[in-house]
Every structure is written in structure tokens, then in C-alpha cells.
């Protein structure tokens, strides 16, 4: 498995990257959104309040202008009620009227009524003047109204169903000065109303109390008279405003535009001046602000996403590296170094991983070494040697060793006769019987030679009384092998088991080449032990003089005298070990040996 396979093979159900990304993104975007939304919400309300105030102020200003238009007319009319009637003042009254009509184009007709309520003069722009027609206007509402209020405004009437007109009457300071009644063409407010602009495309209009349109920048709308659907919308706007207590309201104007409208009363004639501004325009600053906010939010979100992505990746990168590292180490690449320099816990974690890889490498090396040692040392000895760092023992050196040889008698002829599996079965049983004993006695196995073995004692690990120990091990081996031999002999195979031991100096050490090495001893003692073994008969354990000397009285020995052995120039004394039950009882067991050694170790 490759290191990259880590992410692909075990893709997490809910990857950390996703979680980090979501959390980091939310951490930035949520407050941003909350802020934007609250700003928009409060901005909208503030804007609405400000807008309402502004429009009401504009309406007040428009009402003031309309009032000014009317005041100008009534002020002019006042000039016509400054003189008492009688004493030949008729001509002067007429001059006043002519001057006034020259001055105020909106006045289309004027009637002068004297103190007694009699019409004295009627001047019109269309009809010939009518002087002293004697019409009694005492009960004319204009006269009654002017008498009680000084200034009286009549209702708005439509001339020929089209042009709005209004009658205005003013009374003089004294009853004798009479009353002037003027008919005003309200169409002439048009110039005034058309000059009022609210914002970019907002405008003003005037309705009377009953909802009759008095003035509008679209003069045609005014002239269309009653029952016009467009004018009716303005009336609805008026009703909504009145119902709303005079606050600015939203509605549709004559052109069906959605507008914000505000009203201000014109007290004299009891009219209402309205200003309207298209809602789209009125809320344009708010919309601009909302757009700005939205753009900022978007930019913020993009920024947050980028930041979250980078941060998440920065956090996830080391974790991925750790994962890949773990996979690599798991695959046995102990030299894999996880390179993280984030300066945080992840870096120390990576260091721990690297350390762990090093330790794993060491541990594997050690177990390999132990395995190698186990080829020739008993497992416990191998571990001891490895663990205690006494590998120096393995170095080549001269040592007093006990070399032990053993092999089967008649094995060669047996191997010729027997079938391979039968033969290998025998060898297998034989070695299994010997193996446990060898391990127990911690003898060093130097080599297998078909049916034979070579063992060493006192090398590489020294042990007390190696000769005695070797003989005891030999006795146990004979005891273990002899039953096997008897069984095979019973089957008609003439085989036996003999052993030879010798003690003397030898050069011991590892021989072999890379990866394949054995521990061995080289010296005369090895030769001697081999030769002694060669002469040993089935069941016999033969030893040389050095071994016999060390055993002394420990075991019953039987000198066999000096013998000339093949390959040796001089005759050597050979002894035979005769196993007896009593002898075995004297022997320290292999277990006791281990205990002894352990005590020495600690």
C-alpha cells in the first residue's frame, strides 16, 4: 500500500476538513449576516421615519405656497373694501377692481356688494361690466360668510364640468365698506403646483375636503373633472392619509406609481396639500445601502470562505501528513520522516510519530537480532545476550569450551533402506527429543550434520562446571533417545545413538556471511570430541580426560584406557559415563541450573 492510499482507502464519513471549514466559515459569516440584517432592518425603519418627516415638511411647504397664492388674492381683494360706498365713490371702486383684475389674472369675475348687501358692480373678463344691477345678495353664502369671518372661501366648482373655480369673498373693516366677491380660476394654481418638486420625480397636488382635485401638475387630470379614475386614486390616497392620522402613507398615485405621500392642511379653503414621491425613489438611499450591505456580505462571505478553506487546509494538511506517515510506518518504512513545522501540538505529535518509527525500527532490529541468535542459542540465552548488551560475548575469542558431538549409529544404511518420509520422520522425532533438552541446558548449537549435532558449553556464555553439565545433558539426551531407538530397533532398523565430549581451549566466534552466520568453535578439542563420538557405541557417552578430570567423583566413570583415534597422532585416554539411577539423583537438574544463573544475573 502506498502512502497516498491512506486518504483514498479510508475516506472519513464526516471529514475534519468539512467540519473545520463549516465552523470557521460560520464563525465569520453568521455575525456578518446578523449585523447586515439588523442594519437593514433598522435602516429601513429609520429611513421610513426620516422620509415621513421630510415629506410632511415638504407638504407643509407646498401648503404654504398654495396658501400664499390664495393670500395674495385675498390681500389684493382687501384693497377693494377700503372705501365706504356712497358719495360718488363708485368710479373709484371700479378702478380698484380693474386694477386688481390686471394684477391678478386668476380672478375672472368680481362682484362688489355694498353695506346693504346690494350688488353694485360686476366685472368679468368675458362679459361686459354690469353696473348697479341692484341684485340683493344679502343671503348669498359668500356675503354671509365674509360678514362673519372677514374672509370666506367657497366650495370648488367645475366650470362646464372641467375647470375648477372657487368663489372668495372678503369683507371690509366696516360694514359700510361692503364686500367683494371674486371668482378665482384655480387652473392658474397650475404654474405654482407644477413648480413644486419633491425629490427627483415626486410632485405635489391639492384636493379639497371632499376629495375634488384642485391642482395637479398634470393639468389635464384636473380638467377631466369628476369621476375620473386617476383622480379617484388621489382621493383614496387622501382618505388613507386621513384614516392614518396624517402620517405619511404608501399608496398609488394618479399614474399608478407606488408612492409615499404626506399631507398638510391648507386652512383657509379647507384644502389639503399633498406631496408624493415614488417609493422606489424615496427608498433609493436605503436600497443603495442594502445593496452595499449585500455586496459587503458577499465579499465577507467570499473572504470567510477563502479564509476558512485556507485555515481548514492548514489544519488538515498536517493531519493528512500524519496519516500518510502512519501508513508509511505501518508499511515498514521506519525511515519515513513526518515533516511538520507548524510549531503547535501537531508538530510535537509528528515528532512523537517519528520517534515511534525510530523505536519500532530499533525493536524490529532487535527482534531480528534475537532471531539470529536463536539459531544457535537457547531462546532465553539469546534474549539475555541481546537484552543485556553482552553481544561482546559473540566476538571471536579463545575460551575453554566443552564440545559435544552426538549422532546416530547405522543411520547411513538405514537412510539407504528407508523411504524418505520414514527417514525424515525418524530424524524429526530424534531432533524434537534432543531440542528441548539442549534448550533447557542452554547449550550452544553450532551445526546440524544430517543425523549429528555439535554443541558447545561455556561459549559464548560461560557457565559453571561445563563438563559436568555437558555429561548430565548427555545422560538426559540418551535417556530421551534410547526409547526411540528401542522402538526403531523393534521395527528391525539397526540404529543407535552415541555421544562424545571433550574439553579444551578453542577459538570461538561467529562465522559465515551477511545474514547467514553460525557460531562455532575451532580447535583441537572439537576434533577430539568428534573423534571420541565416532568411537562411541549406541547408548554410550564417551569423554576425554579433561572432562573426566572436571567430573572427578561426581559421576561414576569407567576408564576405557588410551586409544588411538583416527586422525590423531597420539593416543588419548577415553572414559565412559555409565548412567545409574543414583548418579542421576546427584545431578542438579537443568531447572536448578537456570535458577542458579538467574540468581547470578540479578
Amino acid at each position: 500500500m502506498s502512502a497516498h492510499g491512506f486518504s483514498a482507502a479510508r475516506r472519513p464519513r464526516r471529514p475534519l476538513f468539512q467540519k473545520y471549514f463549516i465552523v470557521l466559515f460560520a464563525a465569520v459569516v453568521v455575525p456578518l449576516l446578523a449585523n447586515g440584517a439588523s442594519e437593514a432592518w433598522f435602516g429601513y425603519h429609520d429611513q421610513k421615519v426620516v422620509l415621513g418627516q421630510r415629506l410632511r415638511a415638504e407638504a407643509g411647504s407646498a401648503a404654504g405656497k398654495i396658501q400664499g397664492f390664495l393670500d395674495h388674492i385675498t390681500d389684493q381683494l382687501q384693497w377693494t373694501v377700503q372705501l365706504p360706498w356712497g358719495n360718488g365713490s363708485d368710479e373709484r371702486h371700479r378702478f380698484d377692481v380693474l386694477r386688481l383684475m390686471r394684477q391678478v389674472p386668476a380672478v375672472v369675475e368680481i362682484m362688489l356688494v355694498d353695506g346693504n348687501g346690494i350688488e353694485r358692480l360686476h366685472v368679468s373678463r368675458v362679459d361686459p361690466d354690469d353696473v348697479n344691477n341692484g341684485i340683493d345678495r344679502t343671503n348669498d353664502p359668500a356675503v354671509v360668510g365674509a360678514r362673519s369671518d372677514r374672509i370666506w372661501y367657497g366650495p370648488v366648482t367645475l366650470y362646464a364640468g372641467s375647470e375648477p373655480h372657487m368663489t372668495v369673498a372678503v369683507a371690509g373693516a366696516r360694514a359700510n365698506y361692503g364686500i367683494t366677491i371674486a371668482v378665482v380660476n384655480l387652473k392658474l394654481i397650475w404654474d405654482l403646483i407644477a413648480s413644486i418638486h419633491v425629490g427627483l420625480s415626486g410632485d405635489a397636488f391639492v384636493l379639497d375636503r371632499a376629495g375634488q382635485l384642485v391642482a395637479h401638475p398634470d393639468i389635464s387630470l384636473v380638467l377631466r373633472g369628476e369621476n375620473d379614475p386617476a383622480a379617484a386614486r388621489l382621493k383614496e390616497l387622501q382618505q388613507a392619509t386621513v384614516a392614518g392620522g396624517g402620517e405619511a402613507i404608501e399608496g398609488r398615485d394618479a399614474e399608478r406609481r407606488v408612492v409615499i405621500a404626506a399631507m398638510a392642511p391648507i386652512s383657509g379653503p379647507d384644502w389639503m396639500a399633498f406631496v408624493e414621491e415614488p417609493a422606489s425613489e424615496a427608498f433609493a438611499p436605503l436600497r443603495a445601502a442594502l445593496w452595499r450591505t449585500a455586496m459587503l456580505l458577499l465579499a465577507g462571505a467570499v473572504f470567510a470562505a477563502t479564509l476558512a478553506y485556507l485555515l481548514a487546509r492548514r489544519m488538515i494538511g498536517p493531519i493528512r501528513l500524519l496519516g500518510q506517515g502512519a501508513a508509511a510506518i505501518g508499511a515498514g518504512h521506519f525511515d519515513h520522516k513526518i515533516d511538520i513545522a507548524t510549531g503547535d501540538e501537531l508538530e510535537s505529535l509528528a515528532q512523537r510519530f517519528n520517534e515511534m518509527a525510530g523505536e519500532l525500527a530499533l525493536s524490529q532490529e532487535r527482534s531480528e537480532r534475537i532471531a539470529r541468535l536463536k539459531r544457535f542459542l537457547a531462546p532465553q540465552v539469546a534474549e539475555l545476550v541481546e537484552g543485556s548488551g553482552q553481544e561482546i560475548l559473540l566476538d571471536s575469542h579463545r575460551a575453554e569450551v566443552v564440545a559435544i558431538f552426538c549422532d546416530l549409529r547405522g543411520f547411513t544404511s538405514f537412510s539407504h533402506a528407508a523411504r524418505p518420509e520414514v527417514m525424515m520422520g525418524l530424524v524429526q522425532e530424534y531432533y524434537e527429543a534432543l531440542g528441548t533438552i539442549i534448550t533447557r541446558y542452554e547449550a550452544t548449537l553450532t551445526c546440524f550434520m544430517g543425523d549429528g549435532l555439535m554443541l558447545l558449553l561455556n561459549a559464548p556464555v560461560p557457565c559453571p562446571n561445563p563438563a559436568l553439565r555437558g555429561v548430565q545433558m548427555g545422560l538426559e539426551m540418551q535417556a530421551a533417545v534410547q526409547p526411540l531407538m528401542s522402538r526403531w530397533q523393534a521395527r528391525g532398523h539397526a540404529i543407535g545413538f552415541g555421544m562424545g565430549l571433550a574439553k579444551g581451549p578453542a577459538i570461538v566466534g561467529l562465522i559465515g556471511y551477511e545474514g547467514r552466520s553460525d557460531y562455532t568453535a575451532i580447535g583441537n578439542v572439537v576434533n577430539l570430541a568428534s573423534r571420541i563420538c565416532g568411537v562411541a557405541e549406541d547408548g554410550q557417552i564417551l569423554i576425554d580426560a579433561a572432562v573426566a578430570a572436571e567430573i572427578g567423583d561426581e559421576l561414576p566413570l569407567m576408564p576405557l584406557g588410551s586409544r588411538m583415534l583416527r586422525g590423531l597422532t597420539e593416543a588419548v585416554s577415553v572414559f565412559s559415563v555409565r548412567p545409574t539411577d543414583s548418579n542421576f539423583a546427584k545431578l542438579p537438574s537443568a531447572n536448578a541450573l537456570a535458577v542458579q544463573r538467574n540468581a547470578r544475573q540479578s
Partner: protein
Amino acid sequence: MPLSRRTVVAAALASLPARAFAQIAKVYRVGLVTIGGPDTTVLSPAMAKEFAQLGYIEGKNIEFERRAAQGKSDRLPGIIDDLVAKHVDVIVTASYPAAAAAKERAGTTPVVVTFSGDPVATGLAASLAHPGGNITGVSEIAAELSAKRLAVLKEAVPSVHAVAVLWNADDLGMTLRYQAAEVEAERVGMLIVPLGVRAPDDFDTAFSEMTKKPPDAILMVTDVLTTLNRKRVIDFAAEHHLPAIYEYANLVHDGGLLSYGPDQRSIFERAAGLANRILKGAKPADLPLERPSRFELAINLKTAKMLGLTFPESIVVRADDVIE
């Protein structure tokens, strides 16, 4: 039709300059028709000036098709047909015959009428507020003003008793004005000398009658016929030392003694205003006929001096236009 993105982008790009160009390049075409002569009423520079006030620049975003019937009303249907064929956006007429021809032949082309009497009375429109059809314009306060003029004349020259009224007897609207004057004269005890004319040659007949039996003053009812012959009337009045009252100030500027009537400039202004609304997409049916709301009294002191007259103060004080 499925559109590829490239097509849409290309179209969007192409539409930008095209739209900008269209806004600049949109040239409105306005037909101006009068039964009178060139440079009179709606063909006059005063009318073009009102369009200019509204931001139209002749030759750039407006083109005028000016048509003068030179008093020949039988030419009007052809003129209207021609304008319709030329796809003008609106026709502005002066005089009742021009308005009547337009009403009959203009079809869906909007018409703005001026100087054509009371359109409701003559049947051009259903009502002032809702004219109906494709006609709107400026109404005239036609008949009543004759009485007012007679009163003004009497006030200006109190000695006047017999007044010769010159009017186009072929024109019903003009005859109504004459009749109004006659009613008023009877009411105030004056004498009317009716001098109806039907053709330019009739003026000679009228003049010879006035020469034979001189009136105290002349009241000229303005229509195309009298306007085309105004110079002769003004000259005759001067020659015979006759005070004369006219309907519009321009005749006083031409040497007439005095006039009383609607302010022509404001009539042009409203006509141009209505034409503008139509050009901007309004339907004539939604545009009520407008009555003139400004009247002016014009007096010519030069002519008065020539006649050996002095205007009383009650006239001078209300004169809107005084030619010194």
C-alpha cells in the same frame, strides 16, 4: 428561438449604442395646419418658440410640416391626407375648417385644435373634460367676447353709437360672434351695421358701404378671411379716422387701435403643451380641451393719436399691452 449566450451578449452590446442613438435620433413630426396664410397663427414663429420652450429643437428632434390653405378651405382635406401619409405624430390646426377637416380625415392621428371656436358647440368634441376621439386642444370663448369687445370699444370711445361689424358670413362660428355683438348692442342701445364678407372682393363692397354711410367704429371678427385682409381694414380705418376693435393683440401691433381677447401666446403655449403630452404618449381622449385663461387688452397709442383720440384712464389702467 433558443439564444446562445454569445448571441445574447452580442445583442446586449449592440443594443447599448443603438438605444442611446435612438434616444438622440427620435425625431417627432408635427403637422401645423391653418386655413390662413403662412406665418400666421400656428405657423408663426411664436408657435415654434413654444415648442422650443419644451425642449424641441427644429431639425434635431422635431420637424414641422407647415401647411397654409391660404383661405381655400377646399385644400384642407388634401393637406390633412398628405400629413397622414407623411406619418406625422400629431396635427395642430388653427381655424374651425382646419379642425373639421382633421376630425374627418386624420383617422388615428391625434389632433390639437386652436382658434376653432367652441369645439363642444361646433361638435368637434363631446365635452371639454372628455373630448373623445382623437381631438383635444384649446377651446375658445368665442361668442360672448364680442359683447365684451363692444363694451370695451364703447368705454374707449364713449361717443361710439353705430358700429360696423366685419365678419366672414360663410363661417357659422363667426356669425355667432356677430350675433352676440348685435344682442349686446341692442341691450346697451347701440347700432350694429352688419358687413358680412364671404370673399376678399367683398371687402371693397363693405368699404364702399362704410364710405357711403360711415359708422362710428368698426368691430372686426377675426377669422382667416378677415385676417388675410387685415391690412386693408386697418388702412381703411386709419384713412377714414374710424376707431376699430379687433380680437387679438397682433392686429393692434399691425396698426389697429385696440383689441380684447385671449392671450395668443398662452394659446400657443397650451397647444404646444398638449402636443407635447401626445408626443410623450398621452392619448388625446385623456387630455381635456382647455379654455383660454388669460385675456389681454391691447391698445395702440400711436393709432389713437393719429385718430385724435385719448383713451380714458379706465382703459389705460387695465391695458396689458400698450403700443406707444
